[in-house]
């Protein structure tokens, strides 16, 4: 898979404060790339460097094979975390203005805006002022303005904040559609469930450094602990417990089930395979529940950040 954006060895200092320390990321084409990290990790600074709002002290950025240059702004759509619109300007005029700043002609902008406004069923907002709209409504306009010039690279910083669940879903679907149509998305958020749903790749920043990156599934694979969650029933649960404890490393587990089961997390040693466990359990009890424990993005996030802080 080819790379759309490559940032190499980026460092940035603000006076004494180091915002980024030798950070490199590669964003594959047509992927959704999650840029994660605790508050103040340097995500926004990195995003601003990609947008040429801030210049890096060291390092360089390559977009689609070319070093980043001022003309590239029209290939990028950016929805910042700190976002807003001119309060006393009419929705339509404002959207046209921002679209033209991104290099669209007046006619193109008008045409595409009509299309989006019809799609979101908001044509009657055209002559309203932003201050007359609710926060969620304004966010919709902001989203449209971000994607209107059909950029190759979309950067969303906390895109779902301010949306109700229905509209958040609408926006999520639009982001996926844009990816399917060929756009590449960089997505920065704290909401791990949306990372699970959307991201193909992630990079994790902590204290100005990149501490983890790669394909999300690969990362999960490398973080799995060979643990299986099982629910068992047997005529003699106590004997079963002892039998298992003699053979495997097991701890009590918590999950919902309809049976009054023995619930365990069983961690396999390197010499055992899942089949060994199944055979063993099959011989001794009835298996109601058997699933591999896959670490969530949230777990990986918390664990990695904790480890790197030590």
């Amino acid at each position, binding site marked *: 898979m080819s790379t759309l954006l490559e940032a190499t060895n980026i460092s940035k200092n603000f006076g004494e404060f180091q915002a980024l320390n030798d950070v490199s990321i590669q964003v594959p084409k047509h992927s959704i790339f999650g840029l994660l990290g605790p508050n103040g990790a340097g995500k926004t600074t990195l995003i601003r460097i990609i947008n040429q709002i801030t210049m890096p002290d060291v390092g360089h950025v390559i977009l689609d094979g070319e070093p980043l240059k001022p003309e590239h702004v029209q290939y990028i759509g950016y929805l910042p975390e700190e976002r807003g619109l001119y309060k006393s300007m009419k929705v339509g005029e404002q959207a046209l203005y*921002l679209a033209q*700043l991104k290099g669209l002609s007046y006619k193109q902008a008008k045409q595409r805006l009509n299309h989006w406004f019809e799609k979101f069923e908001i044509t009657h907002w055209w002559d309203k002022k932003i201050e007359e709209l609710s926060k969620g409504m304004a966010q919709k306009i902001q989203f449209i303005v971000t994607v209107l010039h059909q950029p190759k690279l979309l950067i969303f910083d906390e895109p779902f904040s301010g949306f109700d669940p229905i509209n958040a879903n609408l926006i999520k679907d639009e982001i996926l559609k844009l990816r399917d149509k060929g756009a590449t998305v960089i997505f920065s958020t704290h909401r791990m469930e949306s990372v699970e749903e959307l991201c193909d790749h992630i990079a994790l920043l902590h204290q100005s450094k990149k501490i983890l990156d790669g394909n999300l599934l690969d990362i999960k694979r490398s973080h799995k602990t060979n643990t299986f969650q099982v629910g068992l029933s047997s005529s003699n649960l106590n004997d079963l417990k002892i039998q298992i404890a003699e053979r495997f490393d097991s701890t009590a587990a918590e999950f919902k089930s309809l049976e009054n089961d023995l619930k365990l997390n069983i961690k396999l040693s390197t010499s055992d395979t899942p089949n060994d466990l199944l055979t063993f359990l099959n011989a001794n009890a009835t298996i109601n529940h058997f699933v591999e424990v896959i670490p969530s993005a949230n777990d990986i996030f918390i664990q990695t950040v904790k480890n790197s802080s030590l």
Partner: protein
Amino acid sequence: MNHLPLIIKREYLAKVKNKSFILMTFLSPLIVVALLSLVAYLTSVNNEKVRTITVLDESGFLNETLVSTDQMIYEYLSDISLEEAKKVSIENNSYGLLHLPAFALDEVSSQIRFYSEESPSLSLISNLESKIEKRIGELKLKKLGVDLSKIKAAKTNIDMNQENFEGVKTSKTGSFLKLMFGGAAGYLLFMFIIIYGNLIMRSVIEEKTSRIIEVIISSVKPIQLMLGKIFGTSLAGITQFAIWIILIGVLSVAASFFFGVDLSATPQQEMMAGAISDASTNSELQALISEFHSLPLLNLVIAFILFFTGGYLLYSSLYAAIGAAVDNETDTQQFLMPVVMLLVVGFYVGFFTALEDPHGTISTVFSYIPFTSPIVMLIRIPFGVPIWEQALSFSILIITFMLTVWTAAKIYRVGILMYGKKPTYKELIKWLNY
């Protein structure tokens, strides 16, 4: 990509369409004309009032010295006591009673009294004093045996003709004309900077508080946005000024036509009329006209455009930087102070020193210092400043302007993305290195 025209257009329309801007544009001339009319009306009422002064001259020295005019009637009493005279004065509702007791010529001067109900106006008293002084002085001269007609014959009136070494004639009228030109230009620039500099600053703050700034600067360079803002706001300002001047003109004519109020009766205009009436003879009027033509008009116009633009841009970039550095208007004070101080220094030097002595050391020095030079130089130029001096001053202004814009743009670039805490001067300097 150059988005400057697009940004200028938006900034211009955003200002011009703003309700309070429209209101200000059309209401201010109304208020100004209404106030001027009121002042003019009150002045004319004041002038039309006829005052009566009762005079009791027991000394007999006055002898028709005080002659009644349209606005002042002197009523002479005789053969009554002071107490009765006071009563008569009150009954007649006269403004006051002037009393010269029966003393010898040498002693009477310290005994003259003016009685009135309210304290009399200063100008009236000094007017009376000078008339009586003159009369008693003449009487004393006569007593000493001096022939008054000889004194009159010896009296000389000097109206010095001014001429520079190249032989170009100037006159007091001409100086007044220069004063008007320079003063008007300097004042216009001062007002323009104060009004529209603030407008620029507020519009930068607005972009910060509405959080649109990051969206915009992901499309355009901050310096483009800043310059677009400055130019757009200036164009809106010029529009507003033009409408003001036209409306004030039209409304003044209308006011004097409909209400019969003569606006030229305002104090400043009287002063001007006074100066022009010095041109009592035809030859002096011609001198005035030739004076006007001899003003370096082309130089004036070009210098006005250059220094006005330069000075305005210099200050407005400072205002833009201040707007970017803070989150809200209340925080602007600490940074605005030095800027306004510079402006006020320019204003005072211009209006007090340069008008008084356009080629003195202070005026000359301040017409080179970039932050005061636009105002001071504009005031000096009508009095004749060599072109090389103007060029030098303008070059310094432009170099400073470029340095200031560079600095302001740095502060702007960093400041627009800073929220929360109020920066200190130290931090602003640090920002220059980001």
